[in-house]
């Protein structure tokens, strides 16, 4: 650390300001910002635990807490939707990581003709999101080429398409390139095959990167909307985010049920983010800079 005064450690020097007046201004500003951005989500949480009759009664300070909204929500099948969501995100994420690691092992640890073309193809899929492909994608899902399976109306239809994700592959490539080649060559001389090298040498060394693609994959799959919308045929296949719209329009369910369900749909991605925040930030910057 140099002897440079800390007011030169940030562009404005605002956060380094000292003195009572600056402190008050800072605290006020932070409170306002937290209220604007986190407040609505906190209000949702509070609302889910309080008896709410209509949206104008939402508040950050409840008079009474209750679990009634959750029991009512469970009566309307919310646990089933939650289970579907967990199946989709669990299996989907596992496949996504396996597919990414396998592909990245080829891209980062080998050199072969056609590699640049493969990278270009993978990169180009980032311009082909489910939204833009929605209509033909629903036709493909109804009759998957070559194997001729109908994935419409199955959870598999929401899982298999997210198993390959370009972002995950590109971020992982960055990390796997960092591992020194010597380690691998030593093992190769000892007669280890590629699969063993991947499992015993490369994979343990990229464990932090698994956290990065894991947290990104989790939030990405949890946030999926178009794909479940195309695939789900009836309520038995709804994921929780998809079910919110139905619960809102369900006259008998009431606002409390919607709030409880929305909170359950909010928490997994928020908790996953809080638990793996450091990895998330790493992926955010490396992924964003790669474009």
């Amino acid at each position, binding site marked *: 650390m140099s002897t440079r005064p800390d007011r030169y450690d940030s562009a404005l020097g605002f956060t380094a300001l000292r003195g009572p007046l600056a402190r008050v201004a800072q605290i006020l500003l932070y409170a306002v910002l937290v209220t604007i951005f986190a407040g609505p989500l906190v209000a949702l949480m509070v609302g889910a635990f309080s008896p709410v009759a209509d949206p104008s009664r939402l508040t950050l300070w409840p008079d009474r807490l209750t679990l009634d909204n959750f029991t009512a929500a469970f009566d309307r099948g919310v646990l089933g939707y939650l289970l579907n969501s967990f199946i989709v995100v669990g299996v989907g994420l596992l496949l996504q990581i396996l597919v990414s690691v396998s592909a990245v092992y080829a891209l980062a640890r080998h050199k072969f003709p056609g590699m640049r073309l493969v990278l270009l193809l993978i990169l180009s899929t980032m311009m082909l999101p489910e939204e833009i492909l929605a209509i033909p994608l629903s036709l493909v899902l109804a009759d998957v080429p070559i194997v001729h399976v109908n994935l419409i109306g199955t959870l598999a239809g929401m899982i298999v398409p997210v198993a390959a994700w370009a972002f995950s592959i590109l971020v992982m490539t960055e990390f796997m390139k960092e591992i020194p080649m010597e380690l691998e*060559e030593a093992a190769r001389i000892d007669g280890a095959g590629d699969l063993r090298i991947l499992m015993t040498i490369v994979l343990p060394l990229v464990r932090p990167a698994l956290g990065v693609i894991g947290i990104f994959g989790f939030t990405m799959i949890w946030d999926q909307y178009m794909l479940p919308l195309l695939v789900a045929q009836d309520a038995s296949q709804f994921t929780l985010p998809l079910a919110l719209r139905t619960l809102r329009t369900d006259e008998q369910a009431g606002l409390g049920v919607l709030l409880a369900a929305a909170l359950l749909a909010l928490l997994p991605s928020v908790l996953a983010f809080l638990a793996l925040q450091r990895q998330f930030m790493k992926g955010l910057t490396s992924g964003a800079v790669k474009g």
Partner: protein
Amino acid sequence: MTSLREAPARRRAPALGVPARRGRGARAYALPWLFLLPALILFAVFKFAPMVRAIEMSFHEVRPYLGDRWVGADNYSAVVTDDAFRSAIWHTVVLAVGQTGGSLVIGLVLALLLEGAARHLWFVRTAVFLPTVAAMAVVAEVWRLIYYPAPDGIANTLLGWIGMGPSSFLNAEDTSLWSVMAVGIWRGAPYDMMIFIAGLAGVDRTLYEASAADGAGPLRRLWHVTLPSLRPVFAILFTLAAIRGLRVFTEIFLLTNGGPNGSTEVLMTLIYKLGLERNELGIAAAGSMVLLGATVVLTLTVQALRRREAR
């Protein structure tokens, strides 16, 4: 930041095990492809096959069981001349520009205000960032409640405090698009903030000190030192946000579903309705292709600009 700067050096490095594998024949050539196979198959089936199908459909009148009929560019001219499509394109552009610009500006302001290593700043940043990790479906439901159009709804109560409103927000034609845009900025700005903060960490601190020694105040320092250093970050965020803005679907679908009276209908919601509700598959596919074309052109333009600037 670092990853970009280091990339060329890494490519030049001899590594990557070429010599070790020389002379091991066909098996060594096949091996990387074997590891790539799952990803390539999945992309082929769920990305490229639908894209090819969309191109094909966009030139046909799609008639299930009867066979497709070639109609040339009719679907495209329908897209460009149809009033519903025209206003949807206009709404998409307004929304993409507004959300992108709003998120960039507010994200930059947030980054400047919350930059620093102190623990309490980390806490504030985390809280501010939460909208970005919340599922869009949840965000939409929460904002529907905030925008509750009664005079005692949350947003209207807040407007009342500063002597404005009440507004119908999502329920009126002249406010609906702006209300949707505000939600997009609320969710997009914290994302941009985090990227800007990462970019700010890379700005040379001695430049700040030097500019202060030259008598420049914080604002001139911001304008002459900080912002120029952030140019690559702006380019990336602009591309990402613009691409996301063009394909906007979920928030519209859940907040307004294009209403009231088409005032928030965007390309994707219109395509969805045409394709899956009215079965106009050919025209829907042509709409998708227009959207894809715009995305590709936008991405390549920004890439080209960045490369020219880097030279």
